[in-house]
């Protein structure tokens, strides 16, 4: 699984931050949901809050969580990644809890939230998204662990090695190509 030939284009599978590679897609979808969920909640709270206060407040909360995830995933520092893990986890718990709640007690939800019925109104993307987000973040933590040399605090050391040379997009030189290959990317 770790043979280099799995990637025909060298740059194709060498994401150097949480916002590149598959992270590019994640940030895009998170950004989309951040915008749509919070804009929708904003309009609903401003125009007809009393109609379904629980649903609208939950939508606003979901919007905030999406904003947080989109921003932290695109920053990608160790601290940002920790916050991203937290917001993805809150999101997963939220979609499961609200999904169950909306099915068990439909009376509380005269109007739908992003997370109603496990996000069925949004093609179940709200259910799938945090799972992919957490998998991506875990892959990152693991890559930094195996990528570093003798690492005690895996994430910080991995990030420091990359960040010592250059931040963000140009951070790749800090992480040797052999590390990337050894990790199967």
């Amino acid at each position, binding site marked *: 699984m770790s043979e280099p030939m799995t*990637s*025909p*284009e060298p*740059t*194709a*599978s*060498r*994401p150097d931050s949480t916002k*590149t*590679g*598959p*992270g*590019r*897609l994640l*940030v*895009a*979808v998170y*950004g*989309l949901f951040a*915008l749509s969920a919070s*804009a929708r909640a904003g*309009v609903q709270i401003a*125009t007809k809050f009393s109609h379904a206060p629980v649903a609208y407040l939950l939508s606003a909360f979901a919007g905030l969580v999406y904003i947080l995830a989109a921003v932290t995933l695109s920053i990608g520092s160790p601290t940002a990644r920790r916050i991203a893990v937290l917001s993805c986890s809150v999101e997963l718990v939220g979609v499961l809890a609200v999904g169950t709640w909306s099915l068990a007690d439909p009376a509380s939800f005269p109007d739908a939230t992003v997370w109603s019925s496990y996000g069925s109104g949004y093609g179940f993307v709200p259910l799938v998204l945090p799972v992919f987000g957490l998998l991506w973040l875990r892959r990152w933590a693991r890559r930094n662990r195996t990528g570093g040399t003798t690492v005690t605090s895996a994430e910080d050391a991995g990030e420091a090695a990359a960040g010592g040379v250059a931040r963000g997009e140009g951070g790749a030189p800090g992480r040797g190509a052999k590390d990337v290959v050894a990790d199967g990317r």
Partner: protein
Amino acid sequence: MSSVNGAVPTTIIVAGLALAGYALLMTALNRRMNVPLLAAVGVLEILLLVEVGIIVAKLADGARPAQLPTLIGYLIATPLVPVAAAFWGLMERSRWGPAVIAVAGLVAAVLMVRLHQIWPVIHV
């Protein structure tokens, strides 16, 4: 109330889904962003602008949907989708650039359905 011609939204849905399919194929084949894909995004953008123009003309005629603020929000956000996706996708030098474009194609199709829900005179 006369209805808006459904040809443009229908074309957008077909074009958006086709673009998404093509872009996902590129992702599967490990291709990066290229000029044909960008040109396709440009075509989608033009179609969306035409649709926005049709709806604005409808509003200028004095017709109003039940939720005017929502419709205006959609009219602003809709043409930004391909532009934002193109920028974000071009920054990516891997197969995941086209994947971003695929999302934009799907979103364009979904937006047409949502526009119809917000204002049923917009036929799909």
